[in-house]
């Protein structure tokens, strides 16, 4: 099919395990979300003070992007012309609940702007754009389940039109105890060999 682009690399964070291209990059001491975020941040050797202020969804999205874009930087294939196409099921429900609780708490005079700002799912795209200096298109979709076909239908034309050289597509879901992320990097120069078969396989594993 015309206009498909190949997957340069992919990664996931799920059940305490951080995977990069089918290699185990890091395993957290426990699958508890906070522990996974803390230990992954440390294992990746990042210094980004703002990380600690982020809401759970932004942390998950940030680290997922860090794994895959960090690898691209090491390999010399990173492009600042990387667009972000992200999606999930639950939007930023953890921050929505936290903010609503602060509204409902009679002892709380005034809810915090620092919590409110994270009650938008696309904030995580801003965090990633700041970190990697991406002045590119970024889009956050909500879907019932991870659907790479729809993501690719949106990403391919960005590459075809030259709006982006690469597109980072990601499913980043965080709702209470449940978290999972899966990201893959599409490259303009790479013909899309076996892309759909690979995505179908990973979708079943999600």
């Amino acid at each position, binding site marked *: 099919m015309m*206009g498909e682009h190949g997957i340069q690399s992919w990664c996931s964070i799920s059940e305490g395990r951080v995977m990069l291209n089918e290699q185990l990059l890091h395993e957290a001491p426990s699958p508890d979300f906070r522990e996974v975020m803390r230990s992954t941040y440390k294992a990746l050797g990042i210094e980004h003070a703002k990380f600690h202020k982020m809401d759970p969804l932004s942390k998950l999205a940030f680290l997922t992007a860090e794994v895959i874009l960090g690898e691209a930087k090491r390999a010399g294939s990173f492009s600042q012309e990387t667009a*972000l196409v992200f999606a999930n*099921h*639950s*939007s930023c*429900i953890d921050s*929505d*609940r936290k*903010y*609503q609780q602060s*509204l*409902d708490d009679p002892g709380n005079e*005034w*809810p*915090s*702007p620092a919590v*409110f*700002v994270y*009650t*938008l*799912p*696309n*904030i*995580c*795209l*801003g*965090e990633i*754009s*700041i970190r*990697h*200096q*991406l*002045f*590119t*298109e*970024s*889009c*956050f*979709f*909500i*879907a*019932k389940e991870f659907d790479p076909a*729809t993501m690719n*239908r*949106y990403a*391919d*034309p960005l590459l075809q039109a030259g*709006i982006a050289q690469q597109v980072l597509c990601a499913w980043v879901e965080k709702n209470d105890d449940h978290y999972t992320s899966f990201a893959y990097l599409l490259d303009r120069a790479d013909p899309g060999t076996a892309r759909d078969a690979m995505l179908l396989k990973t979708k079943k594993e999600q």
Partner: protein
Amino acid sequence: MVDVRLSFSNTITALGADVRSVFQALSDGRTGLQKCSGWERLDMPLCFSRIEDSLLQDRYHAAGGEPGKTRLEQMMIASLHDVIQRSGVKLDARTGLIIATTKGNIDALAKASEFPAGRAELVELGEQVVSHFGIPNTPVILSNACVSGLLALVVAKRFIENGTYDHVLVTSGDLLSEFVLSGFNAFQALSAEPCRPYCAHRKGINLGEAVASALVTRDASLFSDDNMRLAGAGSCNDANHISGPSRTGEGLFRSINLAMQEADVTPDDIQLISAHGTATLYNDEMESIAFQRSGLSHVPLHSLKGYFGHCLGAAGLLETLIAAQCLHQGRTIPSAGFAELGVSQPLNVITKAGDAEMHRFIKTASGFGGCNTAVVFERPGA
């Protein structure tokens, strides 16, 4: 290149329940903003716009609406119904649906809500709308802060260009809620007086409630008399701050450039800027810099926030529909609340309603997360 048009449309706001009557209200200088002494548990002076309950009930009833829907679902169903009826678009596999919203049914999370908290899920909002119309395709739900309504048109354009759909119905809407009002208040961004975009005396934002919907299509048999060509689009991040506008207007500047490049136009080809203009100090300043860098400082410009307030996810599409009417009716709408320029770069702010022949306008929007979107619209035959 596929010729994609913004065709039949509808909006429901404090100023009416269709685009022409809302445009007429603006031409008559009416505003939808009202001053209040509070809202729900917020006990403080506020200024906002809100759809009249009786108007919404009437429109929802006309759409054959069943009981058990939330206010936002009623807004979207009533608005989409009007577009579907007047356009006659078939709701089959070739017709997509995009729902754009920043906070959806967020009021369902409140303890006082008659709906379960699960109704706040945006996926659930999509199912409620789709099941009303029997739309066979899964809706595409877009939540990109305050650029959502405008970005939805860009997404629709791309899905038509790449052959995914022939037609896309877009609906964008957000509620006036305690959740969002209190949040903007926590940012100290709210003005208790009608807002004054770009003015030296501006004190902040007013929030508003609206829904806006449109049919985007490549099928000439479905073009409305007042259709507009989606000539070019750009959407770029500031990569600077998650809640503050860029000091250089970088993302908006890049978005405008991409949109003008794709439309193959120069600043002299554009006769109107329908700007975002929220009337916060930093947003309006950022826009003036981006417009100056883009060579657009001389182009007549308005913000419509002084009529509707900031309608969040609906703002971009609502304001696009009004600008399209400006071009088709040859009338300019002044930027309400403006008295004296209060930004560092020159702007040609429209202060009086008048007649003008206009061929193209550019619509811009910016939002939290550093997102920006710009779209060039062209009047066919111009």
